[in-house]
């Protein structure tokens, strides 16, 4: 039973990093970014290629992030400069990334079991004695997630971060400040996809292999995490949105684990996710409607 809970936290924390990215695009920029399906495995491909070539697992972190930033920039440029609709620019980029990922990794499936990773190396094995070794992965992930969250929180409070937030909710303000809202959007997409790629890279190190199909459905998981998290903690003022997204991610993975453990056919999971998704959206829409009515009355 303990392993299941550990598993939920492991998976949930990794997807939380990706969800922080989806939070930027979907919640802050109001941009449904589908390129995540391609950038998540891109990070894994970069990580697998580097580690297979003998690079230090820590080096794979910034490299995966940078790869994601580049891909996100492409989505942004396609949308802002080439005036392609938001959904389409994401689809185009994630489609193209499939081939890029194959090229980067070399083949469709790369194993790095035999190499050191951030979860399995002489230092980690020395720090964590045999008894609590199973906790090591969760502890390491927890630290990474907290670092990501704090960095994102700090960034959102900088001048550039304020502009990013303004671009989503009130883009006239950005223009009034004599800033180009397109550039702000590109920047947001770049950071968001950087997080997605970073998450993919960490997943690759945790599971010990890259598979070209591992990105399928990432964006749906990301959206579900963001929506579950932000809805539940909507009116709890002391919980920051970024924290809410991380908790939402763990809740989502817990639901999946419960479903699998109660013998549900994993094939039906997507339908359940869809229903859960719709349910939360409908309920929150009902709330908005009533707000409006109240405002009128």
């Amino acid at each position: 039973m303990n392993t299941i809970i550990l598993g939920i936290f492991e998976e949930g924390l990794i997807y939380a990093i990706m969800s922080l990215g989806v939070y930027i695009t979907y919640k802050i920029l109001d941009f449904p970014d589908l390129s995540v399906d391609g950038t998540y495995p891109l990070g894994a491909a970069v990580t697998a290629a580097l580690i297979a070539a003998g690079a230090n697992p820590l080096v794979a972190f910034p490299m995966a992030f940078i790869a994601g930033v580049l891909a996100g920039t492409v989505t942004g440029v396609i949308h802002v400069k080439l005036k392609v609709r938001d959904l389409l620019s994401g689809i185009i980029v994630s489609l193209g990334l499939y081939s890029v990922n194959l090229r980067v990794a070399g083949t469709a499936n790369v194993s790095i079991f035999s190499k050191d990773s951030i979860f399995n190396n002489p230092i980690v094995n020395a720090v964590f004695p045999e008894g609590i070794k199973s906790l090591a992965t969760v502890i390491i992930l927890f630290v990474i997630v907290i670092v990501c969250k704090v960095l994102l929180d700090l960034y959102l409070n900088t001048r550039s971060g304020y502009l990013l937030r303004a671009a989503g909710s009130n883009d006239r303000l950005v223009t009034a400040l004599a800033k180009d809202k397109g550039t702000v959007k590109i920047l947001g997409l770049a950071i968001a996809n950087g997080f997605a790629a970073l998450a993919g890279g960490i997943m690759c190190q945790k599971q010990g292999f890259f598979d070209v199909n591992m990105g399928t459905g990432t964006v749906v998981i990301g959206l579900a995490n963001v929506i579950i998290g932000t809805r539940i903690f909507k009116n709890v003022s002391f919980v920051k949105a970024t924290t809410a997204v991380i908790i939402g991610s763990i809740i989502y993975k817990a639901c999946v684990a419960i479903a699998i453990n109660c013998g549900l056919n994993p094939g039906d999971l997507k339908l359940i996710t869809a229903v859960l998704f719709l349910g939360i959206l409908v309920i929150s829409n009902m709330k908005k409607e009533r707000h409006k009515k109240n405002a009128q009355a």
Partner: protein
Amino acid sequence: MKKNELMKRAALFTAMAMLTAGLTACGSGAESTESVSDTADTTVAEAAAEETETSGASEESTVSGDFTIGIGQFAEHGSLDNCREGFLQGLSEEGIVEGENLEVTYNNANADGSIASQINQSYVGSGVDLICAIATPMAQSAYAATKNTDIPVIYTAVTDPVAAELADAEGTPVGNITGTSDKLPVEEQLKMVREILPEAKKLGIMYTTSEVNSESSVAEYKELASDYGFEIVESGISTSADIPLAADTLLNDVDCVTMITDNTVVASLPVILSKAAAKNIPVFGSEIEQVKKGCLAAMGLDYVELGKQTGHMAAKVLKGEAEASDMSFELIAGASFYGNTKVAADLGIELPASLTDSAAEMFDTVEE
């Protein structure tokens, strides 16, 4: 205003609670099995293993002791289903019978990597005695999930365990994991095609670029083709939507086509067969199911047999006769010939007696 706010939140929470309740309600049945396996856990399994060792060779009846295993299959797919069936048959041949002394939990990841890893984690969590992983990504994920535990993993339908880093170059397992490989008997297949079609020059192969198994098969075909006077024409696709066009192009350029165990291409076999039939081009299969469906012939695998062989390995581990970490992975012993006389007649080809005489099975109909 405040009151309304509260009510809405209450509504949201109720909805969430109902959902969770629904999930747990449907789980109540399975939870009981979980608690059973929790108590059964390793102690019972170990005791059972010791018991069988001391009681010696009582092989005719079922082995005493209760075993719990989790089977994780990567995708829904005829060959993989056969593997699973064969696996359970193999276990029962060794006296470990589902429903009697074996409790089996089966889950299919439907080709979703994140679900695959959660399936394996749930097996580890419920403390199964052994995990059976079917297909490469499932085996890799099972290995990752069991790394810090003593749960053995037995895999099957992994084409290249060495490339997947589940075994080293000598075939020794990298951990508490072993199984069987479904590596194609490429040389035998080429020999057979040459025997049936003495004149053929260009042999076409279609494969999915995302399937690493296929890549290694194609590479092996290319390496051996010239020994038998063939030139390989390859056609890589990325999704099943590409298959009709790719098939048209490929069939214009080749004398015959051979299938490999590529999941996407095999799933669209009927499309390729009907296009090939229109051009009177023979298509060779890579395993029994494909010959049933209308491939001319195959020197190939019987996945049920492969599964059985895997089941025997798993039985050894469960009974405590061997450790998974000490057993090298196995290849299926020998390839067998499968032919389809109906397809041969349609193509106007006669299958040589040298092959049909030693055939494992011949078919005279095409399964729809």
